């Protein structure tokens, strides 16, 4: 009998769902290999179908997206209860992802921005029924801050190869250690097509924003003065951005020896600039206009500080 699988999305863009389909014909093998019992995006299931199941009835749930509403939290907890394994699928579920940058503001600020001072109505009645908007939390959380997570599949979105490998590993029966990130434990440079152009003595006199210059397609992007986070980021993506002549922005998150991705990346980049006097240094950093967005683009909620300080 085939293992039962569930797919669910929380705060995400849908890209992770696409990522599954990106397996192209490979998706058929998945369908063949597992018995999909829940996949709101693709198939017509309802939450109550899941509620109806016995605890642990689902062999493996793939949850993508971060957690930032009461409803997402509820679903996460439900799936946790019903599943033997829960996999955080994609950057948002693993690290908080792009939505995680909302942690620079608060729910109230966002609602005011969109709905004006008094915000949206939480409740309203429609022929006898009362509809209630789920609570919007102040902060975005990675999945493992909501529920215990067994495995992580990194990436925004996870590359087909990563997904395929992950599925294979998980279905193979021989499971890796709980908490494992299902991608190589090396930095991205390792698979970068331009790694040979990486200079011995890295040093910068100024940083450029990627839109400011035409990047040499043959040379290490970091060496061209554009913050490329390849050295800090876990491999497994196949250096897709680099192939597109764009710097790595870190969607695969840190390697296993780094606790706070952005802090480490910042620490590393700052170390290799040429200046030694404070003003000169500040001048060099002027072009890093948005440090949080630069170093924590996908990982703010899973960083030590997690969010902007709440007054």
């Amino acid at each position, binding site marked *: 009998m085939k293992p039962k699988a569930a797919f669910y999305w929380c705060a995400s863009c849908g890209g992770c769902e696409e990522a599954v389909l990106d397996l192209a014909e490979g998706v058929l093998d998945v369908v063949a290999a597992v018995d999909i019992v829940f996949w709101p995006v693709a198939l017509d299931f309802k939450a109550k179908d899941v509620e109806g199941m016995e605890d642990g009835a689902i062999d493996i749930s793939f949850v993508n997206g971060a957690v930032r509403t009461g409803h997402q939290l509820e679903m996460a907890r439900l799936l946790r209860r019903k599943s033997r394994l829960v996999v955080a699928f994609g950057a948002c579920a693993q690290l908080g992802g792009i939505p995680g940058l909302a942690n620079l503001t608060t729910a109230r600020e966002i609602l005011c921005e969109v709905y004006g001072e008094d915000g949206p109505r939480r409740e309203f009645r429609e022929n006898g029924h009362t509809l209630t908007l789920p609570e919007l939390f102040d*902060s975005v959380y990675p999945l493992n801050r909501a529920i*215990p997570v067994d495995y992580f599949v990194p990436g925004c979105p996870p590359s087909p190869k990563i997904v395929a490998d992950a599925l294979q590993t998980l279905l193979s029966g021989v499971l890796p250690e709980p908490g494992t990130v299902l991608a190589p434990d090396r930095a991205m440079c390792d698979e970068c097509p331009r790694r040979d152009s990486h200079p011995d003595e890295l040093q910068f006199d100024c940083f450029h924003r990627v839109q400011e210059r035409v990047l040499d397609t043959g040379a290490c992007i970091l060496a061209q003065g554009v913050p490329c986070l390849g050295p800090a980021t876990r491999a497994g993506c196949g250096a897709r951005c680099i192939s597109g002549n764009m710097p790595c922005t870190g969607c695969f998150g840190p390697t296993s020896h780094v*606790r706070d991705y952005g802090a480490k990346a910042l620490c590393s980049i700052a170390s290799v600039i040429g200046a030694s006097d404070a003003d000169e240094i500040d001048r060099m950093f002027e072009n*890093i206009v948005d440090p*949080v967005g630069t170093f924590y683009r996908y990982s703010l909620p899973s960083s030590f*500080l997690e969010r902007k*300080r709440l007054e």
Partner: protein
Amino acid sequence: MPEEFEPKIVAFFCNWCTYLAADLAGTSRIKYAPNAEVVRVMCSGRVDVQFVLKAFAKGADGVLIGGCHPGDCHYQEGNYKALRRYRLLQRLLRQMGIEEERLRLEWISAAEGDRVRVVIDEMVETLRRLGPLHKSEALMEVA
């Protein structure tokens, strides 16, 4: 009347200058506020930005990094690395709503025992003014 807020400072002192200065303050019996607790590293260049943020996240109200004066680093230029990281980190902390006074980088040579007192007392004073650094409360307990 509520008792005065006692800020907590984690201090990363380099082994050759600032840590020795702190020892000198001791042998000179200079008195200063007990709010700073020292983590000894060989060089201010060893101070990983992760350490600083970890300290803030774990409840430090302030973080102090102490190294040798520019040009005097026991390892030639580790203190410059510290300075660069510090400047960029300050920009990030600003975005995260953390006042720059909460993170201080000071050059204190092995001879400047009294400087340790001045810096720590000043910092405690400032942090009392700023009040505690509250990290956002965990929303939910992870089962």
